[in-house]
């Protein structure tokens, strides 16, 4: 697997970085230290923005928070730098959480301007406050005391920062390649589908900011004690834009990309003195060109080149504890598979929903016994998908109750519903389009609660072991759908019918007790439809209750045991397919208009 293997590139690069200072004069060594520090900050930004999709324009302010916190604690309060460092990192994480709070309410460019505004606020504080030294900043910050090593020497600093960087890159790569990174990317690609796959969106938005803060905080503390001078100009908008450029030029969702981007830009800024204006011009033009011509950045170009050249990069396996097929594919966390406490899997009681005065659902009630395949039909706009949204927690009902196995779950959020055993597909496919097929399934398969991510800090090696087991199970599931040979393809690259299958596989991966399928047959040919029927029946055999919205009457009549018919947001009939088909109201309100379509859709 990708995570557990490292190409020969990484050790070679490390070796190169270890001998590099031999070739550097004092100033270039200093620049090298700055480069390494900015690599750390840029990787943090890449995790927030590239992976988490959170437009964070306050990363430079986080960097400053870490630097200033440590500087103030050591100069004004005389703390030992080693004591101040963790406190300063913690303070930065706290700042990141505070700046991240609006992300719970606003996203995309709204979040961009809010975080940028808060960054301006932080800069304003740094420039004005007495305790930050105002515009003059803070000088004479003590170096980090280290027995036998003089950390005022740039060459020694270089190795210290390099050591920290290696640890942080390893951590970032681990995050990027395993459950946490996958969840962040899933949230970035499609928030609704991510929530429906059990991802606690609010936590993960904050977590993304927290990661950005953590990396920026560590870099900030190191900066303060190595450069031993901080002033507001280092942490302003120019730096923020530089960081953004690093991440974009390097490649948004690549840890290596961010690192290379940072190295390039800082080296250019500090080694090409005297050309500031032209340098700035070139830097601006480079950004525009990257965005227009190579939107995936250097990482994207490198990947394309590698695909074209197909270099035989050998991979070295990293020894992972208990590696090999000897490990049984044990269920990784005890999946919450609710034992049916009641014979009724789903009960919807008089649910209503309005959107801006338009009634989408009005007093809708239905009941689905455990193990039934239940169909919901109705003309377009009759409220079918809204009903699914209410049941799966995507929309909150305006009135009424939703009960799952007898338990009142009205108004729960989508991720809560997912964790309670409700899975769904979407009318307009909502795959995580930049993730692979395998990753799509693994996102849903992974039922670890958010707090399990503490492993990344406490016992990172266990992450890999769990990851491997999860991967085996995901491959098993894909095999059932005969999708294993496309496991590593980006989901968006598959043909439509295959994407539908991936979505169903993803929904099943969470081991739901109730599966909601929203027009699963749309766009499928006759053979695929037959296969779909078989799949749905097999799912039911496994004990899963299925509710399906479908326009294809032939499919509905042959697949479903009972039907509920909606029109204008109301239930107008329910019963067996035969009963419903004979219902006068249905014929009048629904079949009359849809008859032609039905005939056309029949094989």
């Amino acid at each position, binding site marked *: 697997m990708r995570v557990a293997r490292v190409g020969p590139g990484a050790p070679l690069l490390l070796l*190169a970085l270890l001998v590099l200072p031999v070739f550097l*004069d004092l100033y270039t060594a200093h620049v090298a230290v700055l480069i390494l520090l900015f690599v750390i900050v840029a990787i943090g930004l890449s995790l927030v923005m590239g992976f988490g999709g959170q437009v964070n324009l306050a990363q430079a302010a986080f960097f400053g928070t870490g630097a200033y916190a440590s500087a103030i604690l050591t100069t004004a309060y005389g703390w030992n730098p080693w004591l101040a460092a963790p406190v300063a990192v913690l303070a930065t994480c706290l700042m990141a959480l505070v700046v991240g709070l609006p992300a719970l309410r606003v996203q995309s460019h709204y979040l961009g301007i809010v975080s940028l505004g808060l960054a301006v606020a932080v800069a304003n504080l740094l420039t004005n406050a007495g305790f930050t030294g105002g515009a003059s900043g803070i000088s004479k910050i003590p170096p980090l005391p280290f027995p036998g090593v003089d950390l005022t020497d740039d060459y020694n600093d270089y190795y210290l920062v390099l050591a920290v960087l290696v640890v942080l890159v390893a951590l970032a790569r681990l995050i990027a390649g395993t459950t946490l990174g996958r969840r962040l990317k899933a949230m970035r690609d499609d928030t609704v589908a991510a929530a429906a796959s059990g991802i606690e969106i609010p936590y993960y938005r904050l977590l993304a900011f927290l990661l950005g803060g953590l990396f920026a905080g560590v870099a900030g503390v190191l900066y303060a004690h190595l450069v031993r001078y901080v002033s507001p100009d280092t942490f302003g908008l120019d730096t923020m834009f530089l960081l953004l450029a690093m991440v974009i030029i390097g490649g948004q969702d690549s840890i290596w990309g961010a690192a290379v981007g940072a190295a390039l830009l800082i080296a250019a800024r500090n080694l090409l003195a005297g050309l500031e204006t032209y340098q700035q011009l070139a830097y601006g033009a480079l950004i525009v060109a990257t965005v227009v011509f190579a939107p995936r950045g250097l990482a994207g170009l490198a990947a394309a080149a590698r695909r074209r050249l197909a270099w035989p990069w050998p991979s070295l396996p990293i020894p992972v504890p208990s590696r090999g097929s000897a490990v049984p594919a044990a269920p990784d966390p005890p999946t919450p598979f609710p034992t049916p406490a009641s014979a009724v899997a789903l009960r919807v009681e008089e649910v209503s929903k309005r959107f801006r005065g338009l009634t989408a659902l009005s007093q809708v009630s239905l009941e689905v016994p455990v193990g039934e395949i239940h169909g919901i039909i109705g003309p377009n706009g009759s409220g079918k998908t809204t009903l699914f949204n209410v049941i799966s927690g995507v929309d909150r009902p305006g009135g009424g109750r939703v009960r799952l196995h007898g338990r009142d779950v009205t108004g729960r959020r989508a991720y809560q519903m997912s964790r309670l055993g409700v899975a769904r597909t979407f009318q307009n496919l909502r795959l995580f389009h930049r993730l692979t097929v395998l990753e799509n399934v693994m996102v849903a398969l992974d039922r670890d609660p958010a707090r399990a991510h503490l492993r990344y800090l406490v016992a990172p090696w266990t992450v890999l072991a769990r990851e491997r087991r999860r991967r085996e199970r995901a491959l098993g599931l894909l095999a059932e759908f005969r999708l294993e040979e496309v496991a590593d393809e980006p989901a968006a690259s598959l043909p439509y019918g295959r994407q539908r299958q991936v979505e169903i596989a993803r929904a099943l991966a969470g081991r739901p007790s109730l599966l909601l399928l929203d027009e699963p047959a749309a766009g499928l040919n006759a053979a695929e439809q037959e296969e779909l029927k078989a799949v749905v029946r097999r799912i039911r055999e496994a004990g899963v209750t299925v509710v399906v919205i479908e326009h294809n009457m032939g499919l509905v009549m042959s697949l479903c045991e009972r039907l509920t018919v909606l029109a204008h947001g109301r239930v107008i009939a329910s019963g067996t397919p035969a009963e419903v088909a004979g219902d006068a109201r249905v014929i009048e309100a629904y079949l009359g208009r849809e008859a032609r379509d039905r005939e056309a859709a029949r094989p």
Partner: protein
Amino acid sequence: MLRLERLGALAATVLLVAGCGGQLAGTGGGANAPIRVDLIGTFSGQNADLGNWAWNGVKLAVDQANARGGIDGRKIQLERLDDQGQPTVGTDLAKRAVSDHAVLVYGSDLSTVTLAMIPILTAARIPEITSGQAPAILQQGSSYIFLDSTTSAVFDQTLADYLVEKRHLTSIAMITNNDAYGKGEHDSFLAELTRLGVRPTIDKVVTPDQTDFTSVLTEIRATDPGVLFIGAEEVETGLIAKQARSLGITATFAGGAPMGTPTYIQTAGLAVAEGTIMTSPYLSNDANAKTRAFAAAYRKAYGQEPELHGAKAYDGMSVFIQAMRRTPTDLSGPRLIAAVRSIDYDGLLGHFKFDEQGLGLHATQVGVIKDGKVVPV
């Protein structure tokens, strides 16, 4: 550790493969090798005039020295580095000066940048002469820092004495910025007022990159001061004066050396600047034979009128050139600073005799802007 000159960090991997290239670093020694002097100045942004003036002054002194055979046959090689007015860039450039074995650093123009550079240059035992004026510069405990004029303490004592004792102006409001220079002006002027038993009507602090002072000036207007003391760099001082007038503040403007520059007059506008009272050790190019000679050479070289900053940069560099001539065979930091302290120098700004802290000039004068020109009172 083997150090090769100027290999970009980027090229690291390539280099490893390609083997070692480059040349061994010069030690700054060679018999006829030029003497490296770095001028770290503010050449871009709002305070860019300062860097250009300093460059003009220093360059003139260096060119004259080189024309007369340099230092014991060695030419002085002047390197121009732009700190962009940002202290962090200043620290980077200070490291660069150390790395390049500069014998002397001239800079920076801004006290804030100077303060940031002091620890690095002092640790490397490189003398630094600055046109900064903040008293804090002298309080760093470094014997390697020198001022090319005098400090805010001296400027503001002269100014306060003139305003309060001579003109009996006691309704004085203060507005200063919070960089090292502004803070020095604030503390010094306030101390002088306190000594004279005057309390400012109001005491407001702004930031160096601010351009809108409406809210602060509105508060100041409410105290109806007779004098508004402004402690900030040239452009900011001009903007404050200009906005103060348009808000209806009729007070006389007073302050330090920045107000004696054409930049201030231009920024504020002729009408606004008229009547401004400032202190400066260099009020006129016509003061004596020396200033006339300097002004003539300056005009010839640059085609513009010299002012205070060019003159003091010329003075500062000239003192060091004299010091280099006293110890031409050993230009190491400790020797050079000892030589500087042994010199009595009569310059354009007055008499220089450097003390242990690095202060050489101890007096200044009061001037006023009349018909758009600075004249002694």
